[in-house]
């Protein structure tokens, strides 16, 4: 009898241990799913600063009305969010309200995160509590100018501009498009940059029901392309771009470089394909894409090849750009961007192009495309006038059709670089 009791005890202990192990395994899966979703939300982009522990905050974001410093979202109980309940966590993520009731500034894209499902919120919470290392880092305090330092004012802003609508699919969407919409409109918060903003810095639209959604605009003076329909790209081009920072005809530059490096390159191919399908479904923004006329392309290539009676811009192109982008402006597949018909080159606002010419660009090293390919900056080599002439040529050569660039435009971008 004794013996059998012992056996029974042993057996039940074993059973308990097995259950505990199963529990731990599930939690680990949940934490991993949360980690993946944190990648999709690119939480790291704002909540990590160079040289500081991951998610410990401190990144300075110039709002135009003062500096916002991102917060420590590690599970440290004092400096981070370690004491948040799941409900408090969800409220902060979805509605921009902290556990102490004060409002966050909408640099935190809570109007988009409002669409995150309860399931995903649960996984995110599990990750930030159990998958992230606590850090006692105390980021600097946000210093907004009056009246923006009145955080309660955000309650008014939220009333007018934020949405707490959960994610809504539209009739006729396939499972894939629905998944793509959920990622783009929700965690991906693509609209934060790609949807034009209104007078109060509010995104003019928060989902696909409005044609202003993802229709492009400007951000920190950069032209931001419309993502609607992406007429020049097919689905695979979009997947390649998000997965590797490069595709058949272009490479990533500017702010998007970090988004690819830290967020989209970590997403599964299925999710990227869903995103691509969703974006391709949106009706294109009129006038947001250059039309390529092959006739014009050939004339420019021929003139550059002959190298007779060149303008200053043409001569500078041959001396500085043709080595990689070639006289045809075709570049090389997945390596050197094609300049003919390029969105950033044909944008009304030349700032993005000028920035790349002056400061250069580098592809991120991603799992699927590890090569870091650097375009050098030419700020040290070319004067404002030379960059203006070069940029004007590039914007008007081949089949490109954009307005000339002035020396003044270049000086303005250069001044920002040197800050």
């Amino acid at each position, binding site marked *: 009898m004794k013996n059998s009791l012992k056996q029974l005890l042993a057996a039940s202990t074993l059973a308990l241990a097995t259950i505990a192990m199963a529990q731990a395994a599930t939690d680990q899966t949940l934490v991993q799913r949360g980690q993946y979703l944190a990648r999709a939300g690119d939480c790291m982009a704002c909540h990590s600063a160079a040289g500081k522990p991951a998610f410990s905050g401190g990144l300075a974001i110039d709002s135009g009305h003062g500096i916002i410093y991102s917060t420590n979202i590690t599970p440290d109980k004092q400096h981070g969010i370690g004491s948040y309940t799941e409900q408090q966590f969800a409220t902060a993520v979805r509605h921009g309200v902290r556990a102490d009731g004060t409002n966050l500034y909408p640099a935190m894209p809570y109007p988009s995160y409002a669409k995150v499902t309860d399931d995903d919120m649960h996984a995110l919470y599990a990750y930030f509590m159990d998958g992230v290392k606590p850090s006692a880092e105390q980021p600097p305090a946000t210093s907004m100018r009056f009246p923006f330092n009145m955080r309660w004012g955000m309650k008014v802003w939220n009333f007018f501009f934020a949405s707490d609508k959960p994610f809504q699919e539209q009739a006729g969407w396939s499972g894939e498009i629905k998944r793509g919409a959920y990622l783009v409109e929700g965690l991906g918060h693509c609209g934060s940059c790609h949807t034009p903003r209104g007078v109060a810095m509010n995104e003019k639209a928060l989902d696909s029901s409005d044609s202003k959604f993802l229709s492009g605009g400007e951000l920190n003076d950069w032209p931001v392309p419309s993502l609607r329909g992406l007429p020049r790209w097919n689905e695979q081009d979009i997947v390649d771009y998000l997965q590797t920072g490069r595709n058949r005809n272009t490479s990533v530059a500017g702010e998007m470089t970090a988004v690819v490096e830290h967020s989209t390159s970590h997403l599964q191919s299925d999710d990227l394909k869903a995103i691509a399908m969703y974006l391709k479904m949106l009706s294109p923004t009129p006038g947001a894409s250059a039309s390529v006329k092959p006739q014009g392309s050939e004339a420019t290539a021929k003139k550059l090849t002959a190298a007779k009676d060149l303008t200053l811009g043409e001569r500078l192109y041959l001396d500085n750009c043709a*080595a*990689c982008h*070639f006289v045809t402006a075709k570049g090389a597949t997945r*390596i050197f961007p094609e300049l003919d018909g390029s969105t950033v080159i044909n944008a009304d606002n030349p700032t993005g192009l000028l920035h790349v010419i002056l400061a250069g660009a580098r592809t991120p090293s991603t*799992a699927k495309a*590890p090569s*870091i390919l*650097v375009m*050098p900056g030419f700020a040290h080599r070319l004067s404002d006038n030379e960059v203006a002439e070069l940029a004007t040529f590039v914007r008007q050569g081949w089949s490109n059709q954009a307005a000339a660039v002035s020396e003044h435009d270049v000086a303005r971008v250069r001044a920002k670089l040197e800050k």
Partner: protein
Amino acid sequence: MQTITNDEVDVVIVGLGWAGSIMAIELAKEGLKVRALERGPDRPPEDFAYPKPADQYGYATRNKVFAKPRDAALTVRYNTQETALPTRKWGAFAPGTGVGGSGLHWTGVLIRPTPTDLKLKTYADHAYKRGSLDPDMRIKDFPFTWDEIEPYYDFFDKVCGLSGNTGNLRGKTQPGGDPFEGPRSNPYPLPALHDTLNSSMFAETAKRMGYHPFPNPSANVSQPWTNPYGSQIAPCNYCGFCSKYPCLNYSKASPQTTILDVVKQMPNFDYRVNANVIRVDLHADKKTARGVTYIDEQKREVFQPAKIVILSSFQFANVRLMLLSGIGKPYDPITETGTIGRNYAFLSNGGATLFFKDKNFNPFVTAGATGEMFNDISPGNFDGASLGFIGGAKIHSSQSSGAPIGTSLPPGTPGWGKGWKEGMVDWYGRSMKISITTSCMSYRGHYLDLDPNYKDPWGVPLLRMTFDWRQNELKLQRYLRDIVLNISKELKPDAMSESFLALDSHWDITKYVSTHNVGGAIMGDSPKDSALNRYLQSWDVHNVFVPGGNAFPQNFQANPTATIGAITLYAADAIKKYYLKNPGPLVKV
């Protein structure tokens, strides 16, 4: 004196050039904790972003990315009767330093030896009458068969995006390629580079004369290429800054463009630069190494414990480290005992420069490997036995650079002043070369050991090189001269100059030939006369592997990089498949 000890790693790699980078990625992929120690600085892409490398004086004259003689000199003499003197300035060869090693500034000719080249001793025994060759010659077979090594050549071709024409696909001769090449399992990954005028003229004439020219096999790639590791190489734009330059266009296969961005993503790999390894530290029984000692950037001595040591620095630096560490027994040319230092070999070059008043060769539109060559004069493809020598050459017309310093001018043109300037105006771009790159046999008296007199800045003895030309190599030169001059005459130049070795020539260390130094720690079938087994494993200290040109028992006419890549991959595979499971000597004798 020892102040710092690092955390232990599974594998320490000494030297992050081609061999080190291959070992790094292959062993890191296996999950091992790998750390590379590089003597020179880091060389990130920003350092050679367009148009920085287009600077002939900086890179080609002042040797910007080469080791400084102060850090890497050796001493040289012709024979054991002389006192060797140090190389205070690079001449005949110039080793690289820094991440990427010589793989960053090589020309990019990626050619395999033939199956006969790999079994040269067997060929000599069969084709030459006993006693007809120099009795001091010590040539040997490579310790593997063509079929065993070919898959590794094939993989390395893909790593580099080899561009050119296939000559022998699985035993079937292909038009346009080298009919003498060994059977390859796959065609060249990419088509050949475009020919320049000189290469077309040369190829056409050589073909008419019965030779079999084909485009130089090139690692300056002809089209965008993604290699098996996922790295991207850009199409070459023919800027002509290759040999002695890092490529400004991501177009030349190098550790940087083919491997390093991938291995740097792996959390189990890291590397230290300005870390000068001064010895391998052995356990008391001398059967295994326990790590390496290096001098770091702050001149501190650091011990790096490791389970496996890979010596993958330059050929003679590997040999020196083995000698300094007591790995194997130093070679003695008198008694012919010992293995470390034996079978050192170099190579010779030469050729004719042809001047044409009415031709413009556009020399500045070119790639390092641009050109055509033929392999008809390599062992087994012609009757060397009746000529009294063994060996051969690539005979080629290459146009590797249009950079102006050192432009060839017709005989009689002044070397400076007004006459030189006029000569430059009249003749720049109006000449082409027909060149030879030769084999070089190994001999009893050609070897490497530690110099008794000269030391480096850390008080460590320099390596001493004992080498000179032998009649075998000089006879080969004279034979090749006849062939080159015959082809040259067919081309009917307006003027011509030539540069070949005479039968009484000594080795000239002041004039650049090529950095294809080989041997000194050779691979072989027996620990009696080789330092390494077929897996580049030290016969004496089994957790030390020594990939590099040091493993070649003699020099063939093919450039060495393809073979260094192949034998390193072969060794990496053996470490993964056999050594990790059962650490110990991989070849029993």
